[in-house]
């Protein structure tokens, strides 16, 4: 992958198996978010392929990635500020009858909407956001907006989730909620989760495997504990951010 003459990374391979959390750590500018952008079709890679469940994703446009079972969250929250919190979750739900202008007034569209609303409410409850359900999302504190953006990705039903720094900017009391959420996604629902994160405590708590990206190359990968204790990783990256 390159931007103009700058090669962001080359010759890397990452696998995110189902029912596991694969974390990707590394300093700013290492290319972590770029990986997510390539996988989601935002940037076409110069070479290489992306596969989801054996299906080649090259050329799939960003709005079609969810249809292939893949959804991302953003580093910045990118919520829909004028919609309420519950509407933010609802808008993410797939195959809604009422989302087609022609099918808008067909029987069943509104019954499905009621069922979806109930499901969205349960998702909000899971992150203790139910009291914010009917408030415009733009008026919520940053932490709640961040949690909402995670719920939105989950509500798509995608089998593979790419979470871009879900804990960034969160107050410490909200982080356990993120940990529980990721664990439930993986353990209870069997989703594959690719996690880009700087918060090493969170990574230690949820990740099953890890890769460390440095200047466009993977300097270590594998079991979390082994990689985080690796002297090269400590010297190249963790020494800057984490007191091991």
């Amino acid at each position, binding site marked *: 992958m390159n931007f103009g003459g700058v090669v962001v990374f080359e010759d890397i391979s990452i696998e995110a198996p189902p029912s596991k959390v694969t974390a990707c750590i590394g300093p700013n500018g290492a290319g972590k978010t770029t990986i997510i952008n390539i996988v989601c079709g935002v940037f076409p890679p110069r070479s290489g392929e992306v596969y989801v469940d054996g299906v080649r994703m090259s050329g799939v446009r960003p709005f079609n990635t969810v249809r292939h079972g893949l959804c991302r969250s953003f580093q910045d929250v*990118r919520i829909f500020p004028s919609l309420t919190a519950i509407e933010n979750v*609802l808008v993410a739900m797939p195959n809604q009858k009422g989302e087609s202008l022609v099918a808008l007034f067909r029987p069943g569209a509104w019954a499905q909407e009621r069922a979806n609303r109930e499901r969205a409410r349960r998702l909000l409850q899971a992150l203790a956001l139910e009291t914010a359900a009917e408030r415009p999302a733009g008026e919520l504190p940053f932490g709640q907006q961040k949690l909402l953006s995670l719920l939105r990705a989950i509500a798509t039903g995608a089998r593979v989730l790419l979470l871009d720094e879900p804990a960034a900017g969160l107050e410490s009391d909200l982080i356990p909620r993120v940990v529980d959420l990721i664990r439930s996604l993986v353990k209870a629902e069997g989703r594959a989760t690719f996690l880009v994160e700087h918060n090493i405590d969170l990574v230690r708590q949820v990740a099953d495997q890890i890769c460390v990206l440095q200047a466009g190359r993977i300097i270590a990968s594998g079991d979390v504990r082994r990689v985080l204790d690796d002297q090269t990783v400590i010297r190249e990256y963790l020494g800057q951010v984490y007191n091991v």
Partner: protein
Amino acid sequence: MEHLLYIGTLIAVWTIVALAANLVIGYTGMMSMGQAAYLGVGAYATATLNILLGVNFYLALLIGSITAAIVGAITLLPLLRIGGFYFALATLGVNFVFFDIFHNLAPRVEGSEGLYGLQLPDFLASSAPRFATTVAVAIACALLCQGVVTSPFGRALQAARDRPDALAALGKDPRRYQLLIWTFAAGLTGLAGGLYAATLFYIDPTLFTLDASILVLVYIGVGGLASTTGSVLGVILLIAFNESLRYLGLPSQFVGPFQQAIYGLLLILLMIFRRRGLVGKYDFTE
């Protein structure tokens, strides 16, 4: 009384135009500055079919609306690649192009600049039933628009307006929603065009200039963006205000400039102190 019914009918017609414009501008964030083009397409298609080809008025109205919807979709497709200021400028271009088409290519009754002689059904021949029918159509359009914006489809429209990239990441193509609502709104505007022709009995290209498009922006700007009530309120208040100036007893040469000056001043004050308009739920600075 006759004049009041005429004004009431005009209010109903412009209400439909404002409702449609608010769907694309207020709810979807697509800054359209050329809605008068679709009003003209609907008016010309209806009047041409009815006057020159003898097609029943109701059928002509329906075909006029469908024609405007199709023209709307075709004109939007190349514009979907651009956004913001450039999109607005391009829609301005659409208005200019269609004005020239009406001016140079549209059919006209011999000896006039436009079309007259609409053959209305007996029921619509007098002012009162015409007023009642147009108001009924406007109410039906308002209910339809309200249904659209409160549905999951309407929710996706607002999401496409707020963060199109985030909507795409959730598996929904923002352009699909933009194209659908634009087509739907152009169809509604075309319907209003046909009713406009029936109200005025005469149409010519000067009715569909940029002035008309700006007027629509003013109606929804004053009433409020992303609000069905705002669309209705803006039209009623501004047309009623305009008409009320007639009764102030000002010399006729002052009425026009005075109207424009007051209009302009009101707009400036509103944009400074209440950018969302009277009952709007969205402003472009969000």
